[in-house]
């Protein structure tokens, strides 16, 4: 019988808490339903879908070349990587050879995109853990990268600069000069960030041993890219299945064994330095030649030929009105995007419009693994883990 002099025993039950969709650390519109015991997370269920824009459905009604601007809008932090994977997939379907100069510039710009993506990641991740100034520094450097994108493509974010067969136009005349300035400041700035964070006791306390992803779990949850490499698996598609001439570049693939938030931070910092290395090599070895393949019927003729040659004018008209029809078949083409394995699965039925375009983005799988990573952690750690995993909601929902 309970002692009447003592208070009745405390009845405890778990509490359900919605994290998001308005919470600033959920980067847009991700909702996490957390089941809590006090401040400890028992279960986490990600809820996505607020940003579904039907890009895969829209692509089925467009000519192959009209899909390119849609791809920018999927992962709007790394638009050129999206352009690249789509163009490579269509080129694989067509068996179209891309001139070396275009390949080099593609590599150069997608590596800049990687730095751009990692800067946004680092800035927001640090901001959420409490380091406000890093966010401002990262966005200051990102601005310089966006200026290069603007000079090249006319757009800061939605570049749509790659075309099936090559590039939309030649690079600007002062491109080398602009990049030289950028490449000079970037490594110094990376040092600056690392000085502020890598040995910082608060940063170490918030990130070390937090959100450990084991290599077995990483594979079971189909995690790729920097998150996989931070869990001790050295897999990089640029090395494993080189595309766009990556086999000609010399770079290292950073790997860490710990699998925690700190490891994911260190891997991305080193990746930015390796990207600078690749950009240097691409600039020095930039081959001369055309920026787009000579493939009448697939690639638009340039304006001068179009105005002087009858055939070019016909090709131009036919391409704009009818598009081009690749052979029936299906291809899957993966690249190493800043967030992980980005793949485009294209099914062609022999008509000028894709029968099906499937976008295999790393973000959806990165969000999914949160349900594995969060349980057992405190809410404050949840914020650090969400920030460290790197996803963009546009790509999660498409």
């Amino acid at each position: 019988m309970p002692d009447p002099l003592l208070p009745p025993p405390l009845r405890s039950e778990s509490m359900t808490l919605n994290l998001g969709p308005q919470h600033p650390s959920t980067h847009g519109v991700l909702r996490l339903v957390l089941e809590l015991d006090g401040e400890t997370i028992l279960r986490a269920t990600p809820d996505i879908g607020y940003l579904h824009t039907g890009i895969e459905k829209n692509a089925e009604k467009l000519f192959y070349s009209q899909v390119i601007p849609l791809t920018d809008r999927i992962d709007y932090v790394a638009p050129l990587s999206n352009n690249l994977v789509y163009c490579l997939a269509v080129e694989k379907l067509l068996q179209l050879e891309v001139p070396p100069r275009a390949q080099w510039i593609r590599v150069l710009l997608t590596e800049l995109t990687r730095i751009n993506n990692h800067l946004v990641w680092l800035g927001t991740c640090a901001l959420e853990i409490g380091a406000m100034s890093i966010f401002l520094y990262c966005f200051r450097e990102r601005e310089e990268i966006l200026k290069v994108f603007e000079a090249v493509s006319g757009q800061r974010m939605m570049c749509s600069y790659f075309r099936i067969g090559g590039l939309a136009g030649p690079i600007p005349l002062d491109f080398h000069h602009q990049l030289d300035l950028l490449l000079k400041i970037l490594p110094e700035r990376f040092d600056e960030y690392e000085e502020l964070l890598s040995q910082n006791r608060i940063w170490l306390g918030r990130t070390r041993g937090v959100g450990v992803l084991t290599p077995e779990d990483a594979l079971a949850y189909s995690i790729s890219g920097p998150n996989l490499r931070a869990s001790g698996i050295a897999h990089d598609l640029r090395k494993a299945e080189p595309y766009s001439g990556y086999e000609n570049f010399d770079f290292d693939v950073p790997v860490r064994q710990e699998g925690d938030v700190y490891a994911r931070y260190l891997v991305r910092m080193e990746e930015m330095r390796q990207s600078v290395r690749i950009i240097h090599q691409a600039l020095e070895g930039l081959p001369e030649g055309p920026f787009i393949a000579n493939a009448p019927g697939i690639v638009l003729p340039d304006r001068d030929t179009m105005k002087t040659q009858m055939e070019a004018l016909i090709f131009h008209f036919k391409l704009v009105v009818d598009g081009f029809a690749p052979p029936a078949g299906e291809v899957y083409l993966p690249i190493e995007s800043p967030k992980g394995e980005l793949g485009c699965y294209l099914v062609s039925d022999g008509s000028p419009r894709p029968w099906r375009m499937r976008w295999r983005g790393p973000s959806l799988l990165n969000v999914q693994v949160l349900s594995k990573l969060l349980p057992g952690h405190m809410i404050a750690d949840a914020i650090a883990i969400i920030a460290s995993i790197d996803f963009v909601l546009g790509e999660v929902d498409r």
Partner: protein
Amino acid sequence: MTCPSELADRLVIRKLQSFHPRALQAASEFRGQLIGVVSAALIRDICDFLRSDPELRFDFLVDLTAVDRYPVEPRFEIVYLLRSMKTGQRLCLKAPLTGKDPRIDSLVPLWPAADMLEREVFDLFGVHFTGHPGLRRIQMPDDWQGHPLRKDYPLEGDR
């Protein structure tokens, strides 16, 4: 089974045929990518076999999606893209399903990654995954009618 002779001696094809006589229905290669049409009824056993076979080790589920071939029957193809972390090889499996009550075994017991991918196929194509722990819509609202990526679902206008 329809299989071009130059593919017949590939390891994965031989293994699949010896695993179950009805496992592999057809095989082809397009742009260097091996595509196997497999029996939908056996999909979980086939994937389990491919994943655990010590020589093949297709242990990474790259992607899981569907293609609607409307009005051709069998209408749906459930597409499984696998990769072996050991050998680096890729494999594309396609499991055909008819348009009337399309159902297939869930792969969540093999790969937890399949959870959201299967929910997406369920939401956008209306394919049911047997044994999935929480099969509900993921991108469209819960009360949505129809499955948008089906070919008989119009892009604009009345549904």
